[in-house]
């Protein structure tokens, strides 16, 4: 499997107390990585650092000739690494506009854009809620829209934070199924979670974050 991202270091402390001291990790094409760890162990901070949304004290990441550091996160890297919040924020427009948003930022031509949006809507199975205001969607529906919005960009690395937290029943099962289908052969998906069913997804690698360090578990 070809390596997509090489993380040499990700370190961060809060009020002098070390939270993260992660080093030497690789994300390869085809990886589905489940990141576990106690609440407050730094899973969200780690994912946000990878996505360039939070600064670390020390940070060094390579992707396709691009180098990200604690001081500089290349904008082009944002087109390759996309982060989805635990409780996704949907813009106060239509669901279609939400899914279209990232494609517009990338300058995707309108014809291709609309085709990709239609495909993403079908992929996530959200046709029945397209006319609903984002604010009125349930937690599971918001999560599905957020996954469609991220997936439409075909990111090389997709970081998903606790996607099934606060979901139960059918919504949880649907989100897990979407995540399973999100991991294609040429991208990498990292899912932070406590969900046992996610941890046991076929082919998933399990990383455990404890004491600021990540260890791979079998």
């Amino acid at each position, binding site marked *: 499997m070809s390596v997509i991202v090489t993380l040499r270091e990700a370190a961060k402390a809060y009020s002098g107390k070390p939270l993260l001291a992660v080093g030497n990790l690789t994300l390869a094409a085809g990886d589905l990585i489940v990141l576990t760890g106690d609440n407050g162990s730094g899973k969200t901070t780690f994912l946000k650092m990878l*996505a360039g*949304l939070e600064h670390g004290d020390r940070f060094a990441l390579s992707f396709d000739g691009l180098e990200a550091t604690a001081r500089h996160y290349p*904008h082009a890297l*944002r087109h390759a690494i996309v982060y989805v919040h635990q409780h996704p924020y949907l813009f106060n427009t239509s669901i279609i506009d939400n899914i279209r948003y990232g494609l517009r*930022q990338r300058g995707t031509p309108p014809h291709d854009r609309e085709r990709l949006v239609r495909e993403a809507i079908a992929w996530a199975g959200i046709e029945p809620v397209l006319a609903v205001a984002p604010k009125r969607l349930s937690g599971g529906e918001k999560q599905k829209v957020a996954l469609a919005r991220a997936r439409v960009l075909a990111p090389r690395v997709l970081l998903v934070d606790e996607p099934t937290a606060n979901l139960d029943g059918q919504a949880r099962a649907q989100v897990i199924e979407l995540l399973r289908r999100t991991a294609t052969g040429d991208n990498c998906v990292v899912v932070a979670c406590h969900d046992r069913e996610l941890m046991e997804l076929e082919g998933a690698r399990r990383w455990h974050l404890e004491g600021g360090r990540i260890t791979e578990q079998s």
Partner: protein
Amino acid sequence: MSLLEATSEAFRRLFALDAELWTVVGISLKVSITALAIATPFAVALGFWVASNRFRGRRALILTLQGLLSFPTVVVGLILYLLLSRSGPLGPWHLLFTQDAMIAGQAIIAFPVLAAFTLAAVHGADPRLRETATSLGAGSLRSALTTLHEVRFAVIAAVLNGFGRVISEVGCSMMVGGNISGFTRNVPTAIALETSKGDFAQGIALGAVLMVFALLVTVLLGIVQSESGAK
């Protein structure tokens, strides 16, 4: 003339489309809307910038903006008068007693309202909003525009509040406009003048127009707030 007679005469003039009365209303609208159009982009940009950045003196700047919300308009007029008067530093511009001077004064008065309201709206926006925009590939400018779009109802409310403040202010307009008939006489300065002359009908008619403006602003604010809640 009794109050009832004056009111009756006021409405007669209003509906008879009294030229002098409606000229005053037109000047008021032109000056206030132009002042808002000039102040809004700068004030919104400043409000957004202050809300989004941490820098030395930020707290003092926020307190200053908040303090200026209740700054007496007549003092704005006084300062502007001193700047624009013949012996003032801006005297050579010959702006005193012109509509441009009134527009400048009202833009200054509206500025802190617009900036402070925008600042509060952006500061109160969900932090996931900018993270989401950024992670989906928006650059700094696009991310800023997305944020402003998300808080658009609060920004519209800021503009309406700013309009409410400038359309009814009398102190600054009187001082730098000079209340010249057909040129710098707006609704508030005309009401002050007509009342002092004893032409209560004209004062009441103009007061009614001002109250309609205030009512319109209130109704629009209500619509904006209900839209904001519904979305």
